[in-house]
């Protein structure tokens, strides 16, 4: 068992942080890599990016949004409980390079994934601006951490309750207008990454995105995670999860992410019913 040693709730309990004992993984993990977790015998294998690792303590930290049955089940795990299986580190580590001015754009729990990458980009000497967004102020996560990880933090909310009223893409455009941006990193909901990539393409700024297709094994043996990048099929779990944002077929990714929608809904609803009855 992989024991949970710390648990926090964010964004009004819709986003959960777990710090988990996994010394072998903590030792090897690099920014951008993910793990697959399975709560119990009947559980599903769920990929989540490591938001933090502590090789000395032997722990990894995940931050996830509760969206369906499996993440709801994860939410119910307390400190001292654990995951039956944690597998990793998986995927390629982020390619980090000193290029000059970098803009990191994060939305939703993508901010958690973005955090270690942002910090690493700053550490190697880039000038890092960060734009993070959420629907509303209460759903914003890791504001303090992102402030520390970057030189300049911009905040956007869809409803205007905090920071810029509007989308991250609007702020991004302003910054790109000023010129000099050498690299953009965008991690968040697929429509956000699609919109960011469309804009950066017009400014011809290289853009890296992190893709989240449905996965099973995470080791390249099932092909369930395939995505189209520059017209070629890639397995996101081994060839990614990070890709050139200008080459990704986002519409295909969105369709593939909906593959099990009906089943997932039923599964989640029945879990909530059973849980509420207890």
């Amino acid at each position, binding site marked *: 068992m992989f024991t949970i040693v710390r648990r926090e709730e964010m964004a009004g309990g819709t986003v959960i942080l777990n710090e988990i004992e996994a010394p072998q993984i903590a030792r090897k993990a690099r920014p951008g890599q993910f793990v697959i977790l399975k709560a119990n015998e009947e559980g599903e294998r769920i990929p989540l990016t490591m938001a933090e690792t502590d090789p000395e303590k032997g722990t990894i930290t995940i931050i996830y949004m509760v969206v369906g049955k499996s993440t709801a089940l994860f939410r119910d795990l307390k400190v001292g409980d654990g995951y039956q299986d944690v*597998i*990793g580190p998986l995927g390629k580590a982020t390619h980090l390079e000193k290029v000059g001015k970098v803009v990191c754009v994060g939305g939703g729990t993508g901010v958690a994934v973005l955090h270690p990458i942002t910090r690493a980009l700053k550490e190697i000497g880039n000038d890092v601006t960060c734009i993070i967004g959420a629907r509303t102020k209460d759903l914003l996560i890791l504001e303090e951490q992102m402030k520390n990880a970057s030189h300049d933090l911009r905040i956007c909310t869809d409803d205007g309750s905090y920071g810029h009223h509007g989308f991250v893409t609007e702020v991004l455009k302003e910054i790109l207008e000023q010129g000099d941006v050498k690299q953009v990193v965008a991690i968040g909901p697929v429509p956000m990454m699609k919109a960011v990539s469309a804009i950066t393409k017009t400014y011809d700024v290289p853009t890296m995105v992190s893709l989240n297709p449905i996965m099973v094994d995470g080791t390249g*043996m*099932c092909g369930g995670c395939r*995505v*189209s990048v520059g017209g070629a099929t890639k397995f996101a779990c081994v060839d990614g999860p990070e890709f050139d944002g200008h080459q990704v077929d986002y519409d295909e990714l969105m*369709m*593939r992410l909906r593959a099990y929608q009906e089943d997932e809904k039923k599964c989640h609803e029945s879990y909530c019913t059973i849980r509420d009855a207890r």
Partner: protein
Amino acid sequence: MADKPEKRTRMPMPEQDPQVRARNFLEVPTGYTVAMAQEEAARCLQCKKPGCVEGCPVGVDIPGFISLLSKGDLTGAVRNLWSKNALPAVCGRVCPQEIQCEGKCIVGKKGQPVAIGNLERFCADYEREHGTGELPPKQKPTGKKVAVVGSGPSGLTVAGDLIVKGHDVTIFEAFHKAGGVLIYGIPEFRLPKAIVAQEINFLERLGVKIEVNAVVGRTVSLDELFEQGFDAVYVGVGAGLPRFMNIPGENLVGILSANEYLTRANLMKAYQFPKVDTPIPIGKQVVVLGAGNVAMDAARTAMRLGADNVKIVYRRSREEMPARKAEIHHAEEEGIEMFLLTNPTRYLGNDNGRLIGMECLRMELGEPDDSGRRRPVPIKGSEFTIDCDLCIVAVGSGANPLLTSETPDMQLNRWGYVVTEEKTGKTTKKGVWAGGDIVTGAATVILAMGAGRQAADSIHDYLTIGW
């Protein structure tokens, strides 16, 4: 003993009714009784130069175990089997007997060969259900540590052989459960998972340690295993890279590799969804591409999950179908249709990106190709459409580069498989052996086990004598 033995017909294997079993996951053949097994055993002529043994890749002493079975010494029979084959309950069920042992049985020249697979299975099952479970004797500890990467039949064989020779053995498995294809690939109705679990439990009782969730190449590298104090490493990671057709529309929702489909069904038990959390697509009109064992398993699983119809689409003819005869026969009994000499050219989808059909071409057989099989060539203008909402691609698999690409000093051939020395399984990297599908390409359980046994002998020599 009225009839001469060779005149008797082969004892049929009792099976679940096709109509019933096509909708459940219980094992299809229900097994011989003692009386049935002994009656079948009596058909063996106890040849002095048995062809059957030549046909078995690991040289099981077939007349020997059959004779013990005839005498009622079932423990003796199973021990005899074990001496050549660590997993008789598995091999009895899944070996392609018709081209191996049974294909060379003298009785088969005039009639039906002795049912060697069924008898092997019977002995192993009997021991499992009635035996004492007594462990074989172990030699005294050598103090040497061996890491086995991958827990398929090949890795399990190496582990079992080396633990009794006194070495300290740890298996590293990427998945959360041990067993390789025996667990994630071959379905319950053909190989009950309880049998595999018991074999693995047997190894654990012998002292083999199993570390699941250990992706070698990621969680730990081969070189780190040596740093951790292992003296030798066996690589038996299988051929787990799915091949696709590379035709337009392949990423539509509803097209899965057989690896994904069977992993969801078997390892994740998705056929019990929503009792378990992993979903699996339920197809009403299902097409399976390919005609090997993997294709048959996928097709029969789809039928059990409630398909209205399931079609096997294969570009060659019946003679070339690589699946075991029994699987093809069982599949057809269960209502699976064969669309032979048919090749898909593109997939058709709707506005939501979901599969609705497939365009195919009819083929005819032309000149023989490199493999000696007549090459299928398309018939001009023969395009037609098959409606389908689920397509499972079972056209073969390749070498997964996850571990090998992290191990540059281990030589690969041009297809990415590990190069090994014949007879020993030694790789070009000192202290590292390899065998099974990662060396041969997708093959069979018994070949993977045979390679494991050879490597285990060589590893033992290395640990006791030197490289």
